[in-house]
């Protein structure tokens, strides 16, 4: 079942994987090296056109990025074997020379330039990945690509590692412009598998790319089956019709599929409680703090049915680990105002507010987080806030949050997707005064000049230690004013049929990038 797109940003394979489920076509039983994957439907492999169907989980197997995140942190080479930064505003990437597309053509810098230019164009749904400071993308020679910026942009590798920016073949693209990525045409990529057939209504069949530069591919065929209903997908896993699935509602899935889930320890998709600080009662800091004390994050995770980690910071701590060790992060966050679940304190804050006897409010919610919203409503009632839930369609909710009428924005439980794994970049689009305007996502409408300054500095600064300090400061600012209550992250899960293992799934990294079946093991 498709849910909403907000936390499902195309730049991240992880987000895609969470939602995808895939499997082999129903009838044909798996031979030893055929993998059956359950997934929601994929309509096109053109990332610029569609956010529908999480093309990336399928696309990851076909289209590869220049760089990837490393399990140990930082970035590693993939299609680019190395990169340099001749000056603070220029990046130069050297491509591998042994990479061939699945039609046998070698990968060249021209393919990379074409791909990224295409993604960057106005009207492309993934254009937001490219900062306005990016001046040019150029092929210096057949295996070198240069990116020029108008000011320093340290998060660039993070952007490039996004799965939705996978490189496709220029020649093929130019020959099939009008139907590029669609069923019947598809794409030509360098990944370990190539798409043999795609049908948005049933599934896709992939076979191994015989030119794959990474060596032998573990599964000669991968069949995706598309599901519109996760219960159904779970039943299919239970009956052995699929081997792998990435459930959205893991608890229900596990019970129906009768399987244990493999789960990641953290994720970048958050669920938060946003309070519109422009309107009463949320313009009262005591009310906001009371709410923060009242909301029991552990209980909310439990209620939501997802695998998740309670949050106490607006930027999840694991993201900060890119900038420093656990200790350094803890030190930097020293003095953070914390809100452990505590009804007494919550009531005390309420007593100090303008609403000592409570108040009545209307909260908006969308279907994807309606369970959490209901739990929040129950918890708010404990401090005298009577909340009425108004379920909105995703579009209506998006339109409201980005509208120019900022006072009309409901306070709400909201899923927030990370738009990258860079701690500064990930949630930047909902911070600051610039985003508290029409078209911006700052639904709390809270900001201070200090916040705006920290945002700008953080994205220009390349020294990790300094960036850590900047973001720690930002987190503390948020915790003090508490315009929003971070509730929990949704962590990725995978359901595997007995006999399959995924040893490193979520082990110590944030995300599993790239052609994930390479890491899926069969047998004990």
């Amino acid at each position, binding site marked *: 079942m498709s849910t909403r797109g907000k936390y499902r940003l195309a730049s991240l394979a992880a987000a895609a994987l969470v939602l995808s489920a895939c499997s082999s076509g129903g009838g044909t039983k798996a031979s030893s090296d055929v993998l059956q994957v359950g997934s929601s439907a994929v309509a096109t492999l053109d990332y610029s056109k569609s956010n529908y169907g999480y093309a990336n989980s399928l696309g990851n197997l076909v289209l590869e990025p220049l760089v990837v995140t490393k399990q140990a942190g930082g970035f590693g080479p993939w299609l680019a074997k190395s990169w340099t930064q001749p000056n603070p505003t220029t990046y130069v990437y050297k491509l591998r020379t042994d990479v061939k597309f699945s039609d046998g053509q070698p990968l060249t810098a021209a393919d990379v330039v074409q791909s990224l230019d295409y993604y960057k164009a106005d009207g492309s749904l993934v254009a937001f990945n490219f900062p306005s400071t990016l001046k040019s993308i150029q092929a210096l020679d057949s295996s070198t690509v240069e990116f020029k910026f108008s000011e320093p942009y340290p998060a660039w590798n993070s952007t490039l590692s996004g799965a939705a920016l996978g490189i496709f073949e220029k020649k093929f693209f130019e020959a099939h412009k009008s139907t590029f990525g669609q069923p019947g045409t598809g794409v030509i990529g360098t990944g370990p598998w190539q798409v043999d057939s795609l049908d948005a209504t049933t599934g896709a069949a992939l076979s191994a790319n015989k030119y794959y530069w990474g060596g032998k591919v573990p599964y000669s065929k991968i069949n995706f089956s598309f599901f519109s209903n996760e*219960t159904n997908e779970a039943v299919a896993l239970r009956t052995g019709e699929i081997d792998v699935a990435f459930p959205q509602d893991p608890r*229900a899935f596990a*019970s*129906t599929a009768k399987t244990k889930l493999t789960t990641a320890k953290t994720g970048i998709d958050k669920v938060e409680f946003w309070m519109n600080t422009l309107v009463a009662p949320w313009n009262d800091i005591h009310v906001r703090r009371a709410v923060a004390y009242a909301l029991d994050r552990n209980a909310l995770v439990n*209620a939501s049915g997802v695998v998740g980690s309670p949050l106490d910071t607006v930027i999840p701590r694991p993201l900060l680990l890119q900038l420093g060790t656990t200790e350094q992060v803890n030190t930097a966050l020293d003095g953070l105002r914390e809100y452990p679940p505590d009804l007494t304190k919550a009531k005390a804050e309420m007593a100090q507010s303008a609403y000592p006897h409570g108040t009545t409010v209307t909260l908006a919610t969308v279907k994807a987080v309606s369970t959490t919203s*209901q739990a929040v409503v129950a918890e708010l009632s404990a401090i005298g806030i009577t909340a009425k839930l108004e*379920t909105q369609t995703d579009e*209506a909710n998006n339109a409201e949050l980005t509208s120019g009428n900022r006072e009309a924005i409901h306070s709400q439980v909201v899923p927030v997707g990370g738009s990258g794994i860079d701690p500064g970049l990930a949630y930047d689009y909902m911070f600051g005064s610039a985003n508290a305007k029409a078209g911006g996502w700052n639904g709390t409408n809270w900001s201070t000049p200090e916040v705006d300054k920290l945002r700008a500095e953080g994205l220009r600064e390349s020294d990790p230690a300094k960036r850590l300090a900047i973001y720690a400061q930002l987190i503390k600012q948020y915790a003090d004013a508490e315009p929003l209550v971070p509730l929990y992250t949704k962590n990725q899960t995978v359901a595997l049929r007995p006999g399959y293992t995924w040893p490193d799934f979520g082990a110590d990294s944030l995300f599993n990038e790239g052609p994930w079946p390479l890491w899926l093991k069969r047998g004990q």
Partner: protein
Amino acid sequence: MARQTEIVSTRKPRRYAPRGLAIGFCFVVAGGILFLAIFGPLLAPQDPNAQHLQDVLAGPSSQHWLGTDSLGRDVFSRTIVGAQLGVLGPLVIAVGSFAIGNLLGLWAGYRRGWVDSLVMRWVDLMWSVPTLLVLVVAAGAVGASYWLAVGLLVILSAPFDTRIIRGVVMEQVPRPYVEAARTVGVSGRRIVFLHIWPNVAPVAIANSFLVFASSLVALAGLSFLGLGAPPGTPDWGLMLSESQAMLFVNPVATLAPALMIVVTATVANLIGDWFDEYLTSRMGAT
């Protein structure tokens, strides 16, 4: 023409009518469901909206007879309270569509002429638009709403009622008792409401029960698709949809609302059939 009638040839084609015990049982069950619908909140052992986040998806226990849902709410209490929406919406639809259908049907069937053409064009239009299509499009545009669906179903069911009532009225109008009333000098309004309607009523009332049953199913279906009652409402369709995934953990939590839907609809259908038979036979074969 003389026309002798003999026992053999005057028997009306009969519809199945459950009798005696069976119908008595139906009324008891219907009464029970109605009782739940009215006094449900008082009867429910627990607050149907009270959450126990530490005790979610529990199986049946002495405290929660049917277990708890994903927010730790008592399924038993929710099933009981669910009777409220389960009965209320369909009742509003049945009554609303009954009122509209009877008025328009009597009007069109008795007056004929342009009134009839106009009403029938409208009925034809509604007839060619599938209910579910309208409900889905409306819910997509405006967002899921139980009362929107109820309102639409009133409008969408009324043509069916109108068509049926009009047909029966047109059957009655040429009957001698109507003509006799006219020759006696009885006013048109009196003929329509006091002469014709009582003879149409069995069909109309029986039909309302069927409308009730089908609306119950339609509303439940809509909730099942997530286009009906808003999340968190104790609504049988929604509960079924929400608990479907938990079938293996706590089957009764899934079965209870499903059973309530089926039982309520069955009872309504049976009573509708029975009413038709009973009221028709009470006034003798016509």
